[in-house]
């Protein structure tokens, strides 16, 4: 018996649970502006989620998926994107989308039940994908975008896509990373391992020790990262994207974190989660750690950081206003449901459109 192949899965943590930095922190971690922006953006996400969830309670928002406790994953990963990259997000990727340039009120519109939320107005987002609800379908879209980049010989562009750890059980996830490997595509896939797929635990999804190792089946580079350490997430995803942009092929990144909120507003996690684990996970949430590091490293004072955090609420409120303005003052016309179905509405369907207009009067 000999060995046909062997593999190691690296684990990256740059700030440990006590906010102690590793020796070899990346340069950006010493850059106060960058770090303050990350801190603020993570807080913005938290504030927006909080607001959206409270709006849902009073009937001004539909089902909404928060990202509490997982802000380092989406903000960290999204912060590595340039406008030339393409983002193919999943429904819990609010943070990533905002980093890419999607307007927060567009995301609110989407979850508020208005299709215009996916018609991103920022020119930097024109090629980005809308949220994918059917789990794992987006991984193939990402591979397709990356294929187009590769076939056209475009340099310096890459695709970032994301998925939950539960979503890795879907065959399409595997098909997507497999073709990314086979074709050496400029694609980075981040698994948000938040330890829950609604009510299902990781050990119920798979007997894998790590979700990163799923990439071994695709023959691609894999890495596991502490998903509550935004420095590590940004460093790992940033390097992976750089590699992809330079023809080095795909990477699968597992970011280990914990879902501190309900799955969505339609869920009640207390039905199935373990309170003790939950409480312990709170101690490990990413913003506390980041704050401790930044203050200790002299990148900002506690007051600076609190001020940044405080700004978020007002900014969220502005986005909410725009959201309301759309819904109340500029609602979609009923016939909109026909107007983007095909470039030209089939003759047979025209009378239906007319009937909708007539009945709406």
């Amino acid at each position, binding site marked *: 018996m000999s060995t046909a192949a062997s593999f190691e899965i690296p684990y990256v943590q740059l700030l440990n649970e006590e906010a102690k930095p590793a020796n070899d922190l990346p340069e950006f971690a010493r850059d106060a502006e960058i770090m303050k922006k990350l801190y603020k953006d993570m807080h913005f996400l938290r504030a927006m989620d909080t607001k959206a969830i409270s709006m849902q309670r009073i009937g001004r928002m*539909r*089902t909404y998926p928060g990202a509490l406790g997982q802000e380092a994953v989406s903000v960290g990963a999204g912060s590595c994107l340039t406008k030339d990259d393409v983002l193919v997000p999943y429904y819990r990727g609010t943070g990533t989308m905002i980093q890419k340039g999607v307007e927060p009120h567009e995301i609110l519109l*989407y*979850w*508020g*039940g*208005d*299709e215009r939320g996916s018609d991103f107005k920022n020119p930097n987002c024109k090629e980005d994908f809308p949220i994918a*609800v*059917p*789990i794992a379908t987006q991984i193939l879209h990402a591979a397709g975008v990356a294929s187009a980049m590769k076939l056209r010989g475009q340099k310096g562009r890459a695709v970032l896509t994301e998925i939950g750890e*539960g*979503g890795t*059980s*879907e*065959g*399409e996830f595997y098909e997507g990373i497999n073709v990314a490997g086979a074709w050496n595509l400029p694609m980075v896939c981040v698994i948000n391992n938040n330890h829950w*797929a*609604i*009510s*299902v635990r990781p050990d*119920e*999804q*798979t007997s894998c020790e790590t979700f990163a190792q799923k990439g071994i089946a695709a023959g691609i580079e894999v890495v596991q990262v502490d998903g509550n350490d935004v420095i590590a997430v940004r460093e790992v995803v940033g390097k992976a994207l750089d590699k992809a942009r330079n023809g080095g092929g795909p990477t699968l990144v597992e970011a280990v974190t914990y879902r501190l909120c309900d799955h969505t507003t*339609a*869920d009640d996690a207390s*039905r*199935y989660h373990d309170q003790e684990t939950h409480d312990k996970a709170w101690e490990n949430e990413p913003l506390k750690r980041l704050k401790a590091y930044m203050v200790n490293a002299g990148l900002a004072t506690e007051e600076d950081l609190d001020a940044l955090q405080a700004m978020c609420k007002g900014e969220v409120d502005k986005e909410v206003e725009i959201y309301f303005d759309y*819904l109340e003052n500029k*609602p*979609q016309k*009923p016939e*909109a*449901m*026909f107007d983007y*179905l095909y470039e030209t509405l*089939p003759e*047979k*369907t025209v009378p*239906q459109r007319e009937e*909708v207009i007539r*009945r*709406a009067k």
Partner: protein
Amino acid sequence: MALVTLIEAVTMALAHEMEKDTDVVVMGEDVGKNGGVFRATEGLQKKFGEERVIDTPLAEAMIAGLSVGMASQGMRPVPEIQFMGFVFPAVNQIMTAVARMRNRTRGRLTMPMTIRMPYGGGIHAPEHHSESTEALFAHIPGLKVVIPSNPSRAYGLLLAAMRDPDPVLFLEPKRIYRAVKHEVEDNGEAYPLETCFVDQEGDDVTLISWGAMMYETLQAAEKLAAEGINAEVIDVATVAPMDMTTIFESVRKTGRVVIVQEAPKAGAVGSEIAAEIAEHELLSLIAPIERVSGWDTVMPYAKLEGQYMPTVERILDGVKKVMAFK
């Protein structure tokens, strides 16, 4: 006798059959600890254990494919697909294995399974959570497609589905999961899958519907009654294979037909009903067959959902149209 909602009737039928037949297992995403995202399997895991109410990995093809293997061993899996919008990864298994294994093996391996899933619009759910795609499955030979329209039927038809020797897709109209309560006795009595239900007799016009749309249809019938129009109202319930006999009888009586469905119009179950009538009962028709239907569009999100769903008003307009025909 318990006063139950449609979804409680589902739970009751599941519990009844699990109690009676140890080969019945419930499986799916979040059906165990969480009792299902709509609570259709609430309490079942506590009662029957993790081996009979199984939280599966997140993969619908897998859920259907595992059920094929389990059914071949004589078990009676009752997989849940969390929303009908997520059944599509399982279509390959449903088409190539579930619907065909009996035929493929000349009866050697059979597929007694009931694939449950909530379906239809009207609850302002996110994208992909509101479609009515029963027509896709009604066209697949080897399947049965059953849709209850009230708590009693949910109980009786689900029992029948679970006892059926062949695979049944059991579509639960989620909009009416909690719309009304019925007195339902947990007596284990199944309803037949072979017949439509005539919910109201009448001889002026035949209203044909199924699932949640039965509510609007019955409301319309009531309004019509007030106007002196006696509608016969048929709940198709088993949309494939369909009981045309009951429908033909009604058409012979009324000569006027309005079909009410939530799905897009083109190529839907309503089309098949109309085609059958046009083939077998043309001479009975006094007026063209009217289909009051969802539009031929993608199901809109919450904000425009109300403009998509067929309404009582649209049904009444349809009836007016066929009644005006002389």
